[in-house]
């Protein structure tokens, strides 16, 4: 047997030498192989070397790039500064657009909640006088803006349209001395007229001394007068001074709208039938209950109300 093997050693070795890889190919093409234990031993030896060489090469290249190939660095630096300046400008513009987008989205949400048909306008100017606090918007008659239309934001009442041109309109804000908005306290349903007082605070007038009003109470529009839709926030009671005598009390109101950051407003061009119906129903209920006491409206509001009533059915 051994003699036979020795005699044909070359042929047997050659046969095995060719057979082993062929069998390997055959089995490998049938099923993909995984690492076997002896493969893992080889990898255990070679993998750290591969990692070490790669690390060395990487750091060599990095070293060359960082410390030797610096010929164009100054030129690149200037170019990058210029590019950075441009990008910062673009970034600021984009951030501004993002903020504007957020504000407009809020306005749209507010409009859909209150079922109002509105026109969005941008504030383009403020009153030159420090005593009067009107604003000018970039929408006018061509956009369907008419006198005495309500101007609001998603935060609450801004004011009403005082006068219009073809392209612009002046808005009397609730802070203005000419402003008068018929409002009710949301909690106690006490009624009064919100008039402008200072740059930050309004006053609630014609409030009966016995009415339940406390700081923190929210004031909303009553819907009377036909200018403002019912239920729009006007402001929050910041101070209520009930004197021991007299028929009224002094109430200060901080407007819901932050006028220092006012950029976009909505002009209510049409109030929906649903809102009108609610107003009518609530007005009827109040009249039946006899709980509400209609205060004496100021001149401007009274005139508006009269006009509306004359036009109404």
């Amino acid at each position: 047997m051994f003699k036979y093997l020795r005699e044909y050693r070359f042929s047997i070795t050659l046969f095995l030498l060719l057979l082993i890889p062929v069998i390997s190919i055959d089995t490998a093409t049938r099923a993909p192989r995984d690492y076997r234990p002896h493969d893992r031993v080889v990898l255990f030896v070679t993998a750290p070397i591969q990692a070490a060489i790669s690390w060395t090469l990487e750091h060599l290249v990095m070293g060359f790039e960082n410390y030797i190939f610096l010929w164009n660095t100054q030129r690149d630096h200037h170019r990058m500064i210029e590019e950075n300046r441009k990008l910062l400008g673009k970034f600021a513009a984009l951030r501004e657009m993002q903020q504007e987008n957020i504000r407009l989205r809020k306005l749209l949400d507010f409009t859909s909640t209150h079922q109002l048909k509105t026109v969005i306008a941008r504030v383009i100017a403020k009153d030159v006088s420090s005593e009067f606090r009107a604003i000018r918007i970039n929408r006018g008659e061509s956009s369907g803006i008419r006198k005495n239309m309500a101007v609001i934001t998603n935060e609450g009442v801004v004011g009403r349209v005082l006068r219009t041109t073809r392209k612009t309109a002046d808005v009397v804000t609730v802070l203005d001395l000419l402003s008068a908005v018929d409002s009710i306290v949301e909690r106690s349903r006490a009624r009064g007229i919100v008039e402008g007082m200072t740059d930050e605070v309004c006053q609630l007038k014609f409030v009966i001394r016995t009415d339940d009003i406390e700081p923190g109470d929210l004031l909303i529009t009553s819907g009377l007068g036909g200018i403002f839709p019912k239920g729009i926030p006007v402001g929050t009671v910041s101070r209520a001074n009930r004197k021991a005598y007299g028929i009224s009390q002094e109430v200060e109101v901080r407007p819901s709208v932050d006028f220092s950051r006012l950029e976009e407003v909505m002009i209510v061009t049409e109030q929906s039938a649903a809102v009108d119906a609610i107003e009518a129903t609530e007005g009827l209920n109040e009249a039946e209950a006899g709980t509400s006491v209609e205060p004496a409206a100021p001149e401007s509001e009274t005139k508006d109300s009269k006009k509306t009533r004359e036009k109404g059915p």
Partner: protein
Amino acid sequence: MNRLLLRTLNAPLLILLVALSVAIQSSLFQSELLSMVQPDFVLIAVIWCGLRRSFTEAAILTLIFGEIAEIHSSSPQGILTLCYVGVLLLSMASLKLLVLKGRRSWVLVALAGSVLWKGLFLGLLYLLDLIDNQWRHTLLLLVPAALSTAGFGYVIFRYLEKFDDWSWKSERVRNAIEGDLLLADIDDEED
């Protein structure tokens, strides 16, 4: 005793060297530019075995080298080994048929072996229906890879010779020792 031990360790050390060289080859020549001139260290080792080892020993070592190469490759198992077997047979045949004296002639074998290896590789891929447009790439790299393998082979063969001398595997060293021993025996007899 030391000589015997070193001779025994020659093959395992050669396997280890091949494993290390594969690791270097696969990590040092990974960039696209260097991969164009990537030498095949396994191929050089296989040719060395074909030229300087017995057929059985060379066959076993070639199978092991092929296995090491395949561990570091995603090619189907056996293809690389079969290509290396082909190169081994070529180098052994050239040793039988041609007069190969010195490193320069070995380099020519390495050059031919590299070309043959590529040809076998393409042929096997074709037979296994794994080839698509691979042949263009392989042919493009045929000459640079062959030249690189031959160039590195010239240097590596020199160090492999030294390695064989150091581990008492080289026939030249063994002959020299036997000559020394023979002379020593003659001297003893004369004394």
